[in-house]
């Protein structure tokens, strides 16, 4: 299970690198593909709570480092998002790629709103651009979730299914 966690983090690292290139190539402006939200959703669906929390933290931490100006914001936002997502996945049935993508979009909205709230609360600058980009970023993240679903699904199938993950319960 720990190997699955590590592999999940590695996949998220790869996905972030790819997303940064895609954003650059497509010239998406303020909109982004927030791989961290996808990773959090997958972690909540496929890992137990502790490992899901660690995975989310790791994804947030990598995202923070790759943001170019690390402040510790994104690990915090990732963990808060994880908390919301962990509650959410217990209430929804996600067994289809489309459902996974929609959940990624919704969780990304939460992720962005939390980031906006924390920035507005402690920095009070640059918050408006985040709000304006939320719909586009959530949509792109949903598409990113759709693209990453086969990889995560294969990862799930490769490991033991006896773990107490939500998706296989």
């Amino acid at each position, binding site marked *: 299970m720990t190997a699955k966690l590590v592999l999940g983090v590695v996949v998220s690292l790869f996905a972030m690198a790819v997303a940064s290139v895609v954003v650059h190539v497509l010239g998406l402006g303020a909109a982004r593909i927030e791989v961290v939200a996808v990773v959090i959703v997958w972690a909540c669906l496929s890992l137990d709570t502790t490992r899901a929390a660690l995975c989310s933290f790791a994804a947030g931490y990598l995202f923070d480092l790759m943001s170019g100006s*690390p402040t510790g914001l994104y690990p915090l936002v990732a963990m808060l998002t994880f*908390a919301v997502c962990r509650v959410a996945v217990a209430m929804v049935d996600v067994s289809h790629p489309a459902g996974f993508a929609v959940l990624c979009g919704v969780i990304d909205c939460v992720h962005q709103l939390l980031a906006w709230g924390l*920035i507005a609360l402690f920095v009070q600058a640059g918050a408006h651009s985040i709000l304006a980009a939320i719909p586009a970023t959530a949509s792109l993240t949903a598409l990113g979730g759709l693209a990453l679903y086969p990889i995560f699904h294969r990862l799930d199938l490769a490991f033991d299914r006896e773990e107490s993950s939500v998706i296989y319960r």
Partner: protein
Amino acid sequence: MLSLLKQYRELVVTGVLIALPFATYLSHAKHGKNLNPFDRAVLTVTGPLERGLNTVVYSAIDTWGSYVGLRHVRAQNLTLRAKVLELEAQNGKLQEAKLENERLRQLLDFARQVPAPSVVAQVVGTGLAPDFLSIRIGRGAADGLRKGMAVVTPRGVVGKIQQVTAHQADVELITDASSAVAVESQKSRARATVRGSGDAHLCKLDYAERSALFEDGDLLITAGTDGIFPKGLAVGRVSHLDHQKAGFSLRGEVTLAVDLSTVEEVLVLGEAGDGAPAQARNGALLEAVHAGAPLRLLSAGVTP
């Protein structure tokens, strides 16, 4: 205590993982944080990975872009090739028209120089019979043409009219075996006859007196004694003279002044006094040429 921690492990881990970045963010939110050794280690490990991945992704994108670009270039190439063919065809037509104009100008200038009235005519076909070398021209009896009239170009003699219909005529070429033209050497003024050989490019020198001064390369011009061709028109050059001791006359070949296989426009020479209408037409044609009218139509007999 330990059992309590184990019991609430999930909550504790989650709490710590929230509290830790929260504290970090609180202290570094405004000015950013300096990277600690762990951050540097992570970046050291992930940096090359990210760069490598970026290289791979950009390479894939470039390859795809090149492929799409090549497909676009291929389509563009096909379009441009079609355009080039079209332009080459247009250019060929223009070149052809230009050359035709030049030839007709020469012909008309020549028509003004010859003493007899003349009619410009376009070659519209070649005789199909292999044993009768002829061409067909697009002028006929309606233009004043009659059997026996001389047909020439500015370069020299072509032949004579063999048969005439209302709007076209057949010209017996001087290379035809039954053709004979009275000639003289431009250099020595010695007289002879040029006969057709049946070969499309050569004639035979005949009735050249052995005592006469003929040399290879001499230019033969019409003598004006046969009642068909006026004096002084180029016929060809003497070649392969046969200096046999026996016989009354010299024999040799004549390389023609005019390449009969490529003639496209000719001048039909009338007899003095019978070509006033034709002269008037040529005068009008010449004026039209200088005015830039389409000579292809004019030379085919179409009134501008």
